[in-house]
């Protein structure tokens, strides 16, 4: 698979039960996953980059195209399924995780993807998102976060910075924003990552790990809306500023960033969290040996949560990017199928015979 090496060992795969393409068929390409529908996002929209990356990445999975399902809600990004030559459903606002739960639970042989935005997933559909995460249904959720409502033409969103001037908030928005990664970690998610629309290599690496994870994989994608919130992520995208803004998370690696790794994270004994320090040999710097080493597999989500708090809530100048957490926990859908298998293991007779016995059971009497 292509993409950034995130330093993660193989675990039981999220696509283990999904049929692969026959070895003797020609290799799939991005074109095989491109539908004939005209893509209708605004010019310059970050969604194009993500679509291209997904279309380019799907062949790497080697799955039969008919066993992949994309489900979306409502919003600009939720048009995504129409452009992929797989099975798909463009559903209703906020409900994609619940629909995907039904798909994943009833069919072990499908690779299930949810495409959603921060309005879809964190406002109207917040309840479904957190419950999907705690249940750990085997699916990958791609949350496109542009920090604005695009499809309804520019109102503030649940991730917009406080004070945002929009059509619905001429004097500035009042709400404190959600941090999607913190929220997912708090909702018991087993796989939580953040990536950026324009960094195809990193995005593909994260997608690859997310697809491979068995359980609900939550991926926040910073995505630029050129019409209503242009430049919201410039700090992490611009070649000039990104080295200072992105805190890269790679499992097993010390968490360092800035020009020449001049800064890093250490535990903050005062708060129990983590903090950014200057790294070096000077007296007011912290030794490179003391920099926190990223452990995505830690059973305890405390450190991952602490790292997620380093994301700016206001105008974005700094954000950790990468896989925050990846731990193994039984999935809801596997457990549900196990119960059905267990219940069916001890029974004899055809379903018809058992149905006759069921409805004719209890206290009965016969009228001759």
């Amino acid at each position, binding site marked *: 698979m292509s993409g950034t090496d995130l330093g993660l060992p193989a675990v039981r795969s999220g696509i283990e039960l999904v049929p692969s393409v026959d070895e003797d068929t020609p290799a799939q390409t991005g074109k095989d996953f491109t539908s004939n*529908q005209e893509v209708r996002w605004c010019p310059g929209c970050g969604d194009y980059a993500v679509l291209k990356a997904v279309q380019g990445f799907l062949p790497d999975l080697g799955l039969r195209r008919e066993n*992949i399902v994309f489900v979306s809600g*409502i919003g600009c990004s939720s048009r995504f399924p*129409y452009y992929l030559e797989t099975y798909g459903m*463009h559903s209703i606002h906020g409900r994609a995780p619940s629909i995907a739960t039904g798909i994943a639970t009833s069919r072990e042989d499908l690779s299930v993807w949810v495409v959603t935005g921060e309005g879809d997933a964190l406002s109207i559909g917040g309840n479904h998102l957190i419950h999907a995460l705690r249940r750990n249904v085997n699916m990958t959720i791609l949350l496109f976060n542009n920090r604005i409502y695009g499809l309804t033409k520019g109102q503030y969103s649940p991730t917009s910075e406080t004070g945002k001037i929009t059509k619905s908030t001429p004097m500035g928005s009042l709400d404190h924003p959600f941090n999607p990664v913190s929220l997912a970690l708090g909702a018991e998610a087993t796989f939580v990552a953040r990536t950026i629309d324009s960094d195809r290599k990193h995005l593909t690496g994260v997608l690859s790990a997310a697809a491979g994870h068995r359980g609900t994989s939550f991926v926040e994608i910073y995505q630029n809306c050129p019409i209503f919130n242009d430049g919201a992520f410039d700090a992490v995208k611009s070649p000039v500023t990104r080295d200072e803004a992105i805190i890269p998370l790679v499992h097993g690696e010390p968490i360092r960033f800035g020009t020449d790794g001049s800064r890093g994270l250490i535990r903050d004994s005062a708060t129990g969290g983590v903090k950014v320090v200057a790294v070096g040999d000077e007296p007011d710097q912290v030794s490179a040996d003391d920099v926190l080493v990223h452990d995505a597999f830690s059973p305890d989500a405390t450190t991952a949560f602490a790292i997620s708090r380093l994301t700016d809530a206001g105008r974005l100048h700094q954000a950790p990017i990468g896989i925050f957490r990846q731990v193994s926990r039984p999935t809801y859908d596997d457990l549900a199928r196990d119960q*059905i298998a267990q219940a069916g293991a*001890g029974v004899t007779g055809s379903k018809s015979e058992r149905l006759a016995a069921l409805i004719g059971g209890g*206290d009965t009497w016969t009228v001759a």
Partner: protein
Amino acid sequence: MSKQVKRLDRVIIRFAGDSGDGMQLTGDRFTQESAVYGNDLSTLPNFPAEIRAPQGTLPGVSSFQVHFADHDILTPGDAPDVLVAMNPAALRANLGDLPKGATIVVDTHDFTARNLTKAGYADNPLEDESLEEYAVHALDLTGMTVEAVKEFGLSRKDAARAKNMFALGLLSWLYGRPTESTIAFLQKRFAKVPDIRDANVAAYRAGWNFGETTETFVVSYEIKPAPMPTGTYRNITGNLALSYGLIAGGVQSGLPIFLGSYPITPASDILHELSKHKSFGVTTFQAEDEIAGIGAAIGASFSGSLGITTTSGPGITLKSESIGLAVMTELPLLVIDVQRGGPSTGLPTKTEQADLLQAMFGRNGESPVPIVAPRSPGDCFDAALEAIRIAITYRTPVMLLSDGMLANGSEPWRVPELSELPEIDPGFATEPNHVVSTSSTNGRGSTDGKREFWPYLRDEQTLARPWAIPGTPGLEHRIGGLEKGDGHGNISYDPANHDFMVRTRAAKVERIAESLPPLEVDDPDGNAKVLVLGWGSTYGPIGAGVRRVRKAGYHVAQVHLRHLNPLPRDLGEILERYDKVLIPEMNLGQLALLVRARYLVDAVGYNHVRGLPLKAAELAEAIGNLVADAEGIEVDLTGAETVDATTGRDEG
């Protein structure tokens, strides 16, 4: 000692007590005994929404009414012949429903000053003359129970809790009920707590023996088994019959069942029941909310399961947008509404049928949904299968409207043979269904002659679209809530297409009427000028009311609807045959509104929303008034209202 045994044709007993007194269990056991004995019966559980309302108060009273007879009956009965009251509140709350001369068996133990005050009695009604019009048996049931179970060494509180079984034993003796099934039931239920088990059995036997040996009761009664068609019978509640119908639908269609549901009274028992039957390939998903319940069911249907969601009125409100999605995506889906009193939280444990218009119209846009309704507890089985047949055959969400009375009420049910059940073919699409031609205007840019899959190409007869499930190669397609282009199913904003698709979705639902059998018109001699039209659980009360009117010598016809959408094709012609149409409903006239609008018939409503079934006697009066009006005659029903113990027909 030998006692006189008197024969009765039917009896209505109401067991009433505090909500912690086990009255539902007592009534249920008496019902099972009567069912096994072979009586026809009908039951009406009535309990507060609070799990344990304040003890000894009027709001905390829970009751269970059972009507059993040696002939075919239709309702739980209007007024009890016998009231078993376990405390002052139970007496006070139910006394108003008793006709003069009714028998009251009352546990005197709780008739203390404190409990009398709680129930709102200034004086003890057992000591003044307020009950002199009734046959009162004031007995210390609790005291006798405690005495009877002394040997098991229970605390006084635990010992007293068996008083409901003492009462059950006494009533079982009084009406000659068989005891084996209750003893077997108690032994199984309390198998893990031998002292409680033995105490309950002992209390039950003590109650029986008290009736048998003391001189308190000089007469016992016999109600012969009712003649019924041959077959194997069991007593069944509506929620259980509905659950079995859903499992049967899975077996008959070969589809796995996926139930997405959120607990809500009075529908939760369906979730509980289905969760016990995973061995049939049934998945039950207790969702985070009503919306997720239906969402997961839609996802499962998309993937080739039979998606089902169960709820009550407030849940339907929350599911409305999702039902619209299923209408647009044309996926099979079963939406079960066990109606209760509304609006809002309303009366969670009481019955009503006021969700009909919500089922018809409670969505944005032109959003037609087929509706079926069962008419009795046992009929819930057949209604479930019919709803599944429609959902799968026509690729559509189907609404099934049960209600609280059907859900918790019970009746003898003839267990069907599997050969009587419909075969349902899911008919999944397996290959492309469209050949691309150069004249094609689908805009997909495909090459001429290539075969492709069009998800909205319809079956000519049913207008159903193909059901192509993930995992089927070559049929990859996308569906969703946006308007579809005819045939190819791609997003379309074309005005003419939208108009066409709106009409086509409506026409598809209307096509279902072609598959329906003719309506059964119950008009014995064809002389009726008045037709009574009903739907759902009013079948019993309407039937009983109609019988009373006929018994008094008048003519009236009855039609009961299984299908509310589409309405049967012959309904219009039937309505035209009658001068007057009466539509009794437990709402303010919802079917009447539809019928008046659709057929321009001046239908008259008969409407009560008391949270209880309609009363046969009152309904008979309403029918009688209309008969008098239509035929220009005087109608006198007094002869029909008294019980005729010799012929015993038709008291409802």
